[in-house]
């Protein structure tokens, strides 16, 4: 007797049909692959069975059990299409029921925000008058913007292929100085304007130096603002070693996986950590969720601070698609909350 086909999704959002047996094989292969790459334990049989039940369902939507709901930190939330930031955030609060609101600008880089800081401070002040839920300010470190032709430092991505390792590292060091100053300048400015916290979103996108620049800013802001929220959301499952020699309190940043990323973030003073595992578009969403959960699980065991895995577009088992399908996004949310017992998303 042939197994029934179940509609499910690929990592790019395309709907396909797979049998329960095929989904099980995908989930088992993913956890083995994640365990091998990240050198972490694979998921246990109960966890694999639960994941299979979530993904082998034909339901259009799924959700966590009553009482198991978690805090949503909503980086880059809202639509930006409602006319003003204030209306956008009020809608997010009053209609979507978001737990943490985030004010952000479409030029979502600290380097760009620096030039419009008073404008963003005024918006924050206005927003805080009208919103009840906490409002953090978010932007991306984007260290590469500090290299030529966009920035003052030499372009290490041009120097490295030429074999000029020393020149590349010097350029990165120069860029990091500018970057950390900008992160602190914007962070202080927004916290002074009444922000409940700062979000360093997509940290490590330009590698270990991007991460290091951010950690220095986090440490500074934590010392100056002991009650402020500081969220560090990551760009990928492991930190790329572009510089290669950077260490945080004796821990080399290049090559860190989520548990170690979390350890340095919480030591630097972050209050929320967001691991990110990028989607493989050629694999099923079931495969991607199993991979993401396996990679992130060790972080839950060493966390002193809340962990909010990224389940936005193209991360954490959510398809990389402008309109992530509800069936796939809700399954990714439930899978992460149920199995990781995470503190938020």
């Amino acid at each position, binding site marked *: 007797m042939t197994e029934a086909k179940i509609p499910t999704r690929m990592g790019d959002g395309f709907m396909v049909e797979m049998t329960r047996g095929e989904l099980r094989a995908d989930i088992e292969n993913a956890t083995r692959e994640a365990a091998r790459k990240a050198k972490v334990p694979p998921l246990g049989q109960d966890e694999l069975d639960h994941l299979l039940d979530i993904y082998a369902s034909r339901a259009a*939507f*799924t*959700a*966590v059990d*009553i*009482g*198991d*709901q*978690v*805090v*949503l*930190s*909503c980086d880059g*939330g*809202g639509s930006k299409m409602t006319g003003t930031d204030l209306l956008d955030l009020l809608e997010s*609060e*009053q209609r*979507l*029921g*978001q*737990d*943490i609101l985030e004010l952000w600008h479409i030029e979502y880089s600290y380097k760009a925000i620096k030039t419009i800081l008073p404008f963003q401070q005024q918006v924050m*002040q206005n927003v*805080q*008058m*009208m*919103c*009840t*839920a*906490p*409002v953090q300010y978010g932007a991306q470190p984007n260290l590469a913007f500090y290299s030529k032709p966009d920035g003052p430092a030499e372009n290490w991505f041009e120097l490295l292929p030429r074999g000029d390792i020393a020149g590349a590292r010097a350029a990165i060091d120069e860029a990091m100085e500018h970057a950390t100053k900008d992160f602190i300048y914007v962070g202080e400015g927004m916290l002074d*304007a*009444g*922000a*409940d*916290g700062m979000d360093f979103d997509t940290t490590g996108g330009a590698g270990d130096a991007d991460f290091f620049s951010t950690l220095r800013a986090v440490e500074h802001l934590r010392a100056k603002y002991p*009650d*402020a*929220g500081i969220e560090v959301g990551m760009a990928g499952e492991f930190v790329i070693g572009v510089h290669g020699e950077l260490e945080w309190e004796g821990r080399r940043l290049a090559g860190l996986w989520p548990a170690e990323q979390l350890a340095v973030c*919480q030591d630097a003073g*972050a*209050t*929320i950590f967001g691991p990110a595992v990028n989607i493989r578009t050629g694999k099923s969403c079931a495969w991607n969720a199993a991979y993401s959960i396996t990679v992130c699980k060790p972080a839950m065991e060493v966390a*002193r*601070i*809340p962990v909010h895995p990224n389940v*936005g*577009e193209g991360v954490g088992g*959510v398809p990389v698609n402008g309109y*992530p399908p*509800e069936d796939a*996004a*809700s399954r990714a*949310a*439930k899978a992460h*909350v149920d199995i990781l017992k*995470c*503190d*938020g*998303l």
Partner: protein
Amino acid sequence: MDVTHALAAGMGGMRTAGDLVARMQMARGMRLEPAKRYVAGKLGCTVRDLSDSYAMEQIRGELGLGRILDHSNLHPGEPNAMAAKFRIAELLDVPISSVERFRELAGLEARKPV
């Protein structure tokens, strides 16, 4: 996607007590269960009530913590937004930056630590 996650796994923001639990995560770095227990203790309710929009609508109204407003559910004369945040800071015993800034700009007396 925001709606999907809010319905699939979110606490519900100020429809429930999601914003209050979030404040303890942000300001104190509390993990989810301790943060929920702390807020439930301050509200005098169960942990399950925190994500129950029926229960929290009553509790928020009684304590003046701000409620969702719509055309059939309006509460003129009840604290919301900044006024509600004054009460939230007091209830949770956690400083809220915008409240402190409002006090300073309005020339109000500084908050006394509990």
